[in-house]
């Protein structure tokens, strides 16, 4: 009996396991195939300069998607990130071009460039904190709370300069606030800052999600909030922090874009939230929470990046691009559901084998 079970077990398992590996790697396989195909169709696609541009353009979405991954892992959603991008870009623009008016004193303070960045980042985290508080304290569904913030933050971005752009964000040497453009245009070891920031954030996020107690709390809250609560996890605090992380990531993107354009426009970041959610979902993170990885999100972001850049280079019409992007996202989710089924089957098989052969194999 035992011998027979052992004989069947490796074969039966490997087949489903192979399927599982293939499914898990769907996004990665898709990415590889797309790179090969675009490389073959467009002579410039695989050139190093083009790949750097691709990584730099992907960084915008990837950074948002990293923050979004935390939120979605808890079973939430953050629709306000695009508006936070616009708001923080405008805050940076305001501080550089017009400084900070200090109320009754009639004094205008021009903060240093690094202070401008810190203030914008703090503002992003604060908006995230408001999201988190509304969701946890007032039990508003994340979708609604962040939808509200989508409008509020966009309106606030417009208010900062009456709908106008803050142009020419180069600062003035006598005020000591020059150098903002360096963030967008500058390089370290020949690689843009945006790419370094994306890499660093991805690394930190990977570490936090997979190796820290906070990361485990994030997964636990998304997996089963009630049991997370019962096992002593501070659910509300965890949720608050993930929305702050998301806001912080959005502010980072706002700074990068304002710096690249050397201008801050109130409409910056419209619809970015949807691209970020798409990247997260493409990377295999479940919208119901509790399942997903940062590595997956990065792959998802690059799938979207490669698609966008590749289709643009081939001159595909903007309408077809939308159709392709939408199809890829939906099909990826179809595969994702399939993976869940395969996993369940493996679990069942393992249970069955455990029932048949309870004795240790050795």
């Amino acid at each position, binding site marked *: 009996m035992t011998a027979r079970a052992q004989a069947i077990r490796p074969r039966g398992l490997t087949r489903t396991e192979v399927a599982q590996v293939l499914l898990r790697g769907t996004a990665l396989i898709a990415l590889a195939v797309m790179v090969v195909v675009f490389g073959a169709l467009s002579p410039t696609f695989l050139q190093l300069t083009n790949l750097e*541009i691709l990584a730099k353009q992907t960084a915008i979405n990837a950074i948002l998607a990293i923050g979004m991954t935390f939120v979605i892992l808890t079973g939430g959603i953050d629709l306000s990130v695009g508006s936070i991008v616009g708001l923080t870009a405008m805050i940076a623009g305001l501080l550089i071009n017009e400084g900070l008016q200090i109320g009754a004193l009639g004094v205008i303070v021009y903060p240093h460039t690094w202070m401008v960045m810190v203030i914008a980042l703090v503002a992003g985290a604060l908006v995230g904190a408001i999201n988190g508080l509304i969701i946890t304290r007032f039990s508003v569904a994340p979708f609604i709370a962040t939808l509200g913030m989508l409008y509020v933050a966009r309106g606030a971005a417009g208010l900062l300069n009456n709908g106008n752009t803050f*142009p020419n964000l180069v600062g003035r040497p006598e005020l000591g606030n020059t150098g903002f453009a360096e963030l967008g245009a500058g390089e370290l070891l020949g690689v843009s800052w945006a790419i370094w920031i994306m890499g660093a954030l991805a690394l930190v996020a990977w570490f936090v999600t997979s190796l820290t107690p906070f990361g485990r709390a994030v997964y636990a809250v998304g997996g089963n909030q009630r049991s997370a609560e019962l096992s002593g996890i501070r659910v509300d605090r965890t949720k608050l922090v993930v929305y702050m992380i998301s806001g912080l990531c959005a502010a980072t993107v706002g700074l990068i874009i304002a710096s690249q354009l050397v201008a801050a426009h109130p*409409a910056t970041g419209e619809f970015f939230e949807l691209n970020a959610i798409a990247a997260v979902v493409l990377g295999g993170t479940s919208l119901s929470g509790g399942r997903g990885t940062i590595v997956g999100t990065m792959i998802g972001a690059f799938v979207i990046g490669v*698609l966008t*850049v590749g289709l643009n280079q081939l*001159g595909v019409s*903007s309408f077809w691009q939308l159709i392709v992007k939408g199809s890829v996202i939906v099909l*990826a989710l*179809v595969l994702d559901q399939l993976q869940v089924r395969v996993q369940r089957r493996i679990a069942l098989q393992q249970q069955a084998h455990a029932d048949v052969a309870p004795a240790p194999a050795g």
Partner: protein
Amino acid sequence: MIDRRTAGLKGLILIPALALAACQGTSQASPSAATQPPATSEPTAAPSSGGEAGGLVCVIVPPVENPFFGAMQQIAADKAEELGYTTLRLVHDDDANKQLELFENCISQQAKAIILDNAGADASVAAVQKAKEAGIPSFLVDREITQEGVAAAQIVSNNFQGATILAERFVELMGEEGEYIELTGKDTDTNAHVRSDGYHDVIDKIPGMTMVAQQTANWSQPEGFSVMESLLQAHPNVKGVIAGNDTMALGAQAALIAAGKTDVIVVGFDGSDDAIQSIGKGELKATSLQPVAEMAIQAAIQADLFIRTGSTGKPEKQSIDMVLLTPDNACQYEQFAPKEGAGSCS
């Protein structure tokens, strides 16, 4: 069984992306191939003879759902292809960040020139500057940027002149007196202000004209409709509406017709085919025609000149006058250009 099924599905996910990429790739190549034959005699020789005509020209415009920009892109790109270039037609969706990304893509594909209808006067400077640093000249049409010396040419229509001739006509139609409403464009767009200033430059000198409301409808037809609907409640005696573009004018016109106020005078701006049709039906009374075709063709011609000789031979800022369209001449225009062989409008 499972792995076979999943393999099939895995294929599925890639089919739309790659199949489309593949057929678009070829269909993209074929129009340029199709346009080349008439001119084969010289352009085929040109690239190799070192005359330097030929290569890639990017044509980047705002969302092509608006026929104005669609026409602009098509006319410019067709002209460039006729001159022996391959073209890449891109859309920046009025998103300055996306515009910058498209510029980077064009730079990495070693484009010879970029023709651009930009995504914001201030926010576009960085992108155009970047192309300049990479040795690629940009030819701006329709909208200006705030910095000079960055683009090789800025070919724009004379919005102020177009606004004044329209306003003069509007005053005449109103009989120099009565209440009117102004619908303005997006606050963030320079053209919205230039046009409004042009209107007031004329109208404010006429004592009998009273502006009872001035509100933005963000260039949008549905907004033109809803804004007009609510303004009509407050100002039922309004006699005329002057709008910053045709789509808002058409939206307002629809609201007026719905309210049974067909005698209100509505004028638009741009000269789109929709507006021309409306004038033909006796609804809109006038519009100023954007010389889109002229601007787009000029951009392509000057890009070609610049690539071959290193200069456009013209100043950077060029403005092209607009034409007033009324029931007398509207039918002679189509797609922002004079229609060939059109007789007088009855």
